[in-house]
């Protein structure tokens, strides 16, 4: 990175902190025994279709976002956290409460555990809570797949060993927000605070314990034009696959409150990605990446002005095609769509490279 970009990274970090403002102090107190959210979906589990439960534990939130780094430029998960430390007992009851949603569901089950930060961060989830939750999972035979989320710095040999010991032969993945394979994009535009090397280390370390990795890939970080974003996403997916991740989860940016991305959006300088960009990125990456790496995408706020969207007429059909593709992995599911807005998107790809003014910006 040239000096100016390094300085700009620091500067963007400060701007990101500023956008967060006092929002952290205004976080709600939650019932510490209730998970922040839990939902059940149909999902692809290995070669089968089964049930997936996603559990968002209510914690004090991402250490990286609470600290002086200000967190990532597009993320306000922190706001979903509570204002006080949550005890191990409470975290375990949150998990148990959530699991009642699948009390009667039959195998195979997939469990995804999210927090508003990192499940493996001891400051966020006390080790005792982690042990107990892992043992609860170990005791449930229906669960064949487990996904835990964490920033790379918390993925240590001892934690990996602990997971391996508890979950044995289960299909385990650690989800990491790689976002972009480009260090400048990740460090400067996203303020992610870790490098591709850090990510790479975790992938191979985890592989040594028979644990897979799930790379979260961001579509359209701020300061990228639509075309920059398209190329960056494809490049990130192929790089992640080359590094040996087991799953790629694609996340088009949605405008979250009190973030730098939101303030750019407010001033007309950012538009969430077009669905066409998402479709093209998935389509191209799927053809370039070996089929043992699964590519999934469940866009947040899709079709809404704060989420990835097209013109409004074609959004619904395209979003359901993306979901269908995530189950089938068949690029044909992404083909054959057309709409009046397709040419507008093509125009934006070319024109924004020169004008830098986002097209079709709505508020």
């Amino acid at each position: 990175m040239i000096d100016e970009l390094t300085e700009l990274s620091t500067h963007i970090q400060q701007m990101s902190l500023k956008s967060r403002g006092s929002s952290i102090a205004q976080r709600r107190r939650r019932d510490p025994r209730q998970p922040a959210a839990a939902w059940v979906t149909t999902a692809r589990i290995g070669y089968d279709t089964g049930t997936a439960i996603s559990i968002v534990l209510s914690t004090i939130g991402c250490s990286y976002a609470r600290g002086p780094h200000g967190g990532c430029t597009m993320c306000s998960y922190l706001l979903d956290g509570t204002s006080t430390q949550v005890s191990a007992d409470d975290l375990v009851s949150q998990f148990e409460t959530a699991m009642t949603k699948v009390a009667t569901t039959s195998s195979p089950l997939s469990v995804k555990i999210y927090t508003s930060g990192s499940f493996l961060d001891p400051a966020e989830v006390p080790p005792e809570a982690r042990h107990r939750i892992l043992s609860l999972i170990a005791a449930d035979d229906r669960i064949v797949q487990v996904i835990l989320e964490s920033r790379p710095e918390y993925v240590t040999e001892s934690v990996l060993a602990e997971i391996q010991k508890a979950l044995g032969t289960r299909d385990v993945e650690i989800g990491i927000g790689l976002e972009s394979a480009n260090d400048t994009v990740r460090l400067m535009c996203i303020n992610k605070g870790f490098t591709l090397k850090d990510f790479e280390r975790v992938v191979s370390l985890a592989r040594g314990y028979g644990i897979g990795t799930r790379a979260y890939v961001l579509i359209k970080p701020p300061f990228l034009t639509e075309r920059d974003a398209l190329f960056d996403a494809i490049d990130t997916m192929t790089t992640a696959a080359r590094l040996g991740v087991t799953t790629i989860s694609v996340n088009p940016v949605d405008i979250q409150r009190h973030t730098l991305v939101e303030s750019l959006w407010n001033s007309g300088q950012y538009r969430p990605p077009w669905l066409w960009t998402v479709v093209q990125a998935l389509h191209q990456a799927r053809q370039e990446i070996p089929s043992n790496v699964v590519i999934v995408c469940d866009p947040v706020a899709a079709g809404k002005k704060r989420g990835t969207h097209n013109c409004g007429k074609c959004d619904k059909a395209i979003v359901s095609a993306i979901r269908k593709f995530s189950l089938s992995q068949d690029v044909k599911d992404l083909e054959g769509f057309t709409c009046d807005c397709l040419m507008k998107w093509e125009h934006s790809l070319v024109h924004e490279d020169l004008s830098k003014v986002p097209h079709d910006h709505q508020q």
Partner: protein
Amino acid sequence: MGKLMIQRGHDGPARQCTWKRDSLSLSTPQLVGPTTIPDLALVYVTATRDELSKTTSIVVLPSLIENVVPVVTDTTALIVAPTLAGIDGLDSEAARLTLTAQTRLIRQWDVAGEHFAIHVPSSTSLSDFRDIIRTSQELGVRAAVFHLDGSLGPRDLQAVSLRSQLPRNWLTVATGKIQPAFVPVLYYLGFDIIDASYAETAALAHRRLWRMESEVVTSWDTARYCGCHACHDATSEGPIEQTLLLHNMEMFHSLLSEAVHARAHGRLRWLVESLSHTSPSMASFLRLVDKRVFDFIEEFTPTVGSGTVPLIGPESYDAPAIKRWRDRLVARYTPPEGKKIVLLLPCSARKPYSDSRSHRRFIETIENSIGPARHEIAEVILTSPLGVIPRELERIYPIANYDIPVTGDWDAEEIRIAADALVSHMKKFPPDVVVIAHVSGGYAQVVQAAQDGIAQSIIYTIREGSATSREALDSLASTLRDMKEVLALHGGRSTLLEETLRATADFQFGPGAGMLLVPEGTSVSGKLYRRVICRDHGTQLASYLAENGLLSLTLDGGCRLSEHGSYWVRFDGEVLQGGSLFAVAVKDADEKIRPGDEVIILNKSNEVVAVGRSEMSGREMCDFTNGRAVSVRHRRK
């Protein structure tokens, strides 16, 4: 060497140029668009992403993140330095870092600076930008690209302010969301290349653009009439987007051509003012631009002109030629000595005022009532939006040229402008002169509004009705007769010729010039409505020409004026050859010089070697290395 060659003619910062680099030559103003727009003389492509075009191209380097190394081909007009999307949404520090990154890369790359355009975020601060310009200039960069988001809000205004900081010999590109009606405005503000991509954006949204608005076309049966080729040949089977794109481009081409034509005829400002009625945001944009970058627009606005200057609405009140006139009157005009009365008169539609029927009647009334004592009266004409006009300056541009809609009603701003002008004008007269206000209606409102700021006593001669009614003129006559007694006015010789020439000299060259060129005891002869010659002890110094109300100097007059230290151009040599001085030979010039000004030319040894008329502003003569700087009238042989 990448070089911007300027052609003759001015109307604000707009210009006609040729951008030359090796064998490539691009005339400006020019529209630019993507390669999907047919028949453009200039297109843009992004390096490594779009296919390079055979057409002359602006090559955009992708994001700063990507580090694409630039390559120049035969068709590359410019390479646009990389920036970051959305950086305009952060603060000026982020913009500064982005620009500094660009200059660092330009320095590092193996391609000469002359090929590049810096990509300027509209959030850049003016002082940072001045530093960046200096660095870029050292690297050989002579072009800049600005973003306009088309909202005509603060960001677009800042882009214009930034543009105004560029040296004159830089090629300037406006990109973004630009509607056809905005094209003449941007051209007026000195943008040479204008992004017409909105023609495509709109066509894809089925929007047909017109001069001042747009319409959504769903079917050709219900669409409004258009005689352009594209619409004429449109069929319900053909792709509607393609027809609309061609139509929309017609609109861009026709507005640009209209602007170019208007500039050639000194009517670009008028066109811009007319188009400001497109939308309230366009109107406020022009007014704010007039405030924010007044000095920039004024600097390139000629001080002479031949056609009519229509001043139609509030957008004219602070037009550069108008506000400059008001400012110069305050700064440069000194009333002649010995005036006992200031007579305020209404303006007339016919110019110069003294040729009008109403003014002939006023003058007749004055002369019939007090005869030769007229020379003790300062005649001052009230008008909008120019304020107050001393009789001596009635033939000068734009006083002899302006045309306003006359309804008799003045709006609050017009009254304020004229009242302010009257108050400052009266401060220049001794406290014991008497003001006779021979005005009614809006003009009288102006005097009333100014009254508290005026130290002298004021006599109103009109109760109601027109200033030219029999009753009003009788009242004026009897007031003047009374005043003749009270103020002990006496006869004497008319001083109108000297006073006119002195006031004109002061107005053209600054205070004090009048006494240098028309000293006491000069002989002045001729007719104000034709030509007046001024000789000092037999040597002709200047002549006054009725057609533009200005003095033109002889070489001797030029020598006299050189003592004044203004309106000089210094050239790099001893003896001047030929009928023109070109900018390449100009070493230095008075920054006060505007296009159309009478100037003196000094040689290396500071001797006056010629006099003539400037074709550029002083700063331009220094910035450019080509183009005609002065058309020489007389030169030392």
